[in-house]
């Protein structure tokens, strides 16, 4: 393709990109549905912007000190699972429960008002129960499964431990249970009276498993088998152990932000960001005239693309993250400034405007690349070493730097190529401050 053709095509693609980016980035746009995948284009707000609580718990794994690593991991997973089911039983909320390191749990509760109630709920000891089938319910009545089970005396304190095991000749893994002496007797009673019926295992009031009793078990060791995947077996084992040997947890840090402060912060940041951008745009236009205007357009596009990426990638925006984004806009301008200064130098050397543009971009690339890479190195280290609020800053800054490199090199360049041609040499005031008359030179 000829050079000119290539530029026009790129410009066209850019316009399409701009349209898509704006569509995604602007608030209030309708949700996008692609087959079964829906994406609601709302930005994920961090706790300091929408209000809520962040809690860090430390688990006391001392009682399990003699276990190997996988066991400790499983115990922690079990605790995580218990907490997750408590604060969000149906899995619809936006709360997060994460394992951090070897014995920490991070709990994020966006939009919560009564933090202490949540903490009480989290701090409760897990309750594991074994229930048997009650009276048969006539088929006409529409009754949920749980109501049909009746509590027995057998509970978590009778369970010594559960393990994942592979039975001889079985194709799928199973979960083995071991009861203590009191449990052994209770369990023998239960299995004797319920052959062919289900025994439901409840953790914190909801069923985690309801196997059918095959035979009377008197030695206190039982095996639950079925079509378990290894994942499912491990999960059931973690849950059973969480009820059998609860791991004590302690809250070691808490960050709560009220909703009003959050909303205030959002508004203030938006306003400040906008103001800053306008100031920068004016500055660029005054200094660099026409190329400055083009770079402002490129920057607007840059901002839309970055915001669109935030939404698509589901990045959580915190206050520090917003600052990172706004800072990256300042850095994006930097790349443009570098290029323009280079172009200006080429013009001083007497080159034609078109050559000056090409040379300017070529020569400006090395410092832009080196400088941005060092910034990216810093963000990478920040990302590894900090916690969630600060991670947001690292992510937005890194994303901003990457997109800004793209924006300066591709968007600005094409805009300049298309809109600043030989005609501008005659109106050199358009090219910026201190550009003397450009002599006609090849």
């Amino acid at each position, binding site marked *: 393709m000829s050079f000119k053709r290539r530029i026009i095509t790129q410009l066209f693609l850019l316009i399409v990109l701009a349209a898509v980016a704006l569509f995604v980035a602007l608030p209030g746009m309708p949700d996008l549905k692609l087959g079964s995948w829906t994406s609601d284009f709302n930005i994920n707000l961090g706790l*300091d912007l929408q209000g809520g609580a962040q809690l860090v718990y430390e688990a006391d794994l001392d009682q399990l000190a003699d276990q190997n690593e996988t066991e400790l991991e499983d115990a922690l997973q079990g605790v995580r699972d218990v907490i997750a089911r408590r604060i969000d039983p149906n899995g619809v909320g936006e709360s997060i429960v994460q394992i951090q390191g070897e014995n920490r749990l991070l709990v994020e509760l966006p939009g919560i008002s009564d933090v202490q109630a949540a903490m009480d709920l989290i701090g409760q000891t897990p309750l594991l129960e074994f229930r048997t089938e009650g009276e048969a319910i006539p088929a006409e009545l529409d009754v949920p499964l749980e109501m049909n089970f009746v509590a027995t005396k057998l509970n978590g304190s009778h369970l010594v431990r559960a393990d994942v095991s592979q039975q001889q000749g079985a194709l799928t893994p199973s979960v083995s249970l071991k009861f203590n002496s009191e449990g052994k007797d209770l369990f023998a009673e239960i299995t004797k009276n319920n052959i062919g019926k289900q025994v439901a295992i409840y953790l914190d009031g909801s069923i985690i498993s309801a196997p059918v009793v095959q035979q009377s078990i008197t030695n206190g060791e039982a095996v639950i088998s079925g079509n378990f995947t290894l994942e499912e077996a491990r999960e059931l084992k973690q849950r059973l152990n969480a009820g059998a040997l609860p791991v004590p947890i302690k809250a*070691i840090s808490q960050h709560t932000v009220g909703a*009003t402060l959050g909303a205030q912060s959002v508004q*203030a940041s938006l306003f400040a960001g906008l103001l800053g951008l306008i100031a920068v745009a004016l500055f660029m236009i005054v200094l660099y005239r026409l190329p400055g205007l083009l770079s402002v357009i490129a920057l607007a596009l840059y901002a839309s693309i970055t915001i669109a990426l935030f939404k698509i990638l589901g990045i959580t925006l915190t206050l520090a993250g917003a*600052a990172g984004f706004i*800072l990256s806009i300042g850095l994006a301008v*930097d790349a443009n400034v570098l290029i323009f200064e280079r172009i200006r130098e080429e013009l001083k050397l007497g080159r034609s405007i078109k050559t000056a543009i090409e040379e300017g971009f070529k020569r400006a690339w090395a*410092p832009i690349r080196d400088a941005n890479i*060092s910034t990216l190195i810093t963000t990478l*280290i920040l990302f590894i070493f900090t916690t969630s609020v600060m991670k947001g800053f690292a992510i937005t800054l890194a994303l901003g730097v990457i997109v800004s490199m793209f924006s300066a090199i591709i968007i600005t360049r094409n805009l300049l190529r298309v809109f600043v041609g030989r005609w501008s040499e005659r109106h050199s005031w358009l090219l910026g401050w201190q550009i003397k008359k450009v002599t006609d030179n090849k």
Partner: protein
Amino acid sequence: MKYSIVKNRKWWFVLSGTMILASIVLLIFVRLRMGIDFVGGSIIEVKLEQEIETGADVEEALSDLELGSVLIQPTSQSTVIIRVAEIGNETQEQIVQKLRKTYGSAELERFESVGPTIGEELRQKAIYAMIIVLVAIVAYIAYAFRKVSAPIQSWKYGVVAIATLLHDVIIMSGLYVLFGVWFGAEVGSLFIVALLTVLGYSVNDTIVVFDRVRENLSKQKSESFGTIVEKSIRQTITRSLNTSITTGLVLVAILIFGGGTIRDFIAALLVGVLVGTYSSIFFASPLLVAWEKWRAKRKSIG
């Protein structure tokens, strides 16, 4: 412009030296104010309907709750920030209740409580992070400038860059001590983030100048190193200043209009950007020349 930055480097070194010394003195004798992120404790921010002049009345009001040592800081938006040893939710609610009774209305804006173990960890992590950033940046510069040997080997660029970064970190911290005294600014994870960001940004700036030096070195082998560096500075100074102005404009906008909780953070960034720009122009490059001259002198003596 006949003024030579390189020739007048003595003055810049004196200026930098003074600032560094002053900062070190401040850091040792006045000390940074440590936030709860690093030493543990609790912070409660409560919104009251009225403006509070001094913390003394609030302290009075809370005195019978027996909270131990309490630090009260009124802010400009009629909220009050209370800092206390680590407490739980019940105590926090009691405090808010008490304030509600005393002042008519009180609303909890923010509550942060950090135990001592996390504080210790964050401190360590922060130090590791800073060391790693410094090492990574030297490595990157040494790599990026590996092909430049005469008259200064590539690793020396890295060392000068590190010296510049340390210069920035010390001065930034010194200024933050002053912020602590004037505005009650505290050192927490946000300050460390600001520090690391400024490191990335300052190195950014410094590399642009060094890059130019490298380019000019390969083109004009006849001129003295000092002249080449001077030229490089001249060529990049407009761009450096422009970038600081644009970034600075944005930061000032956020500082004035933006969210209060990150005010200290933004102020630190702003200071860092200014110091970083100053150091790339007036410290890093003259240092390069000084080193080369010192090395040349040694060679001719020894």
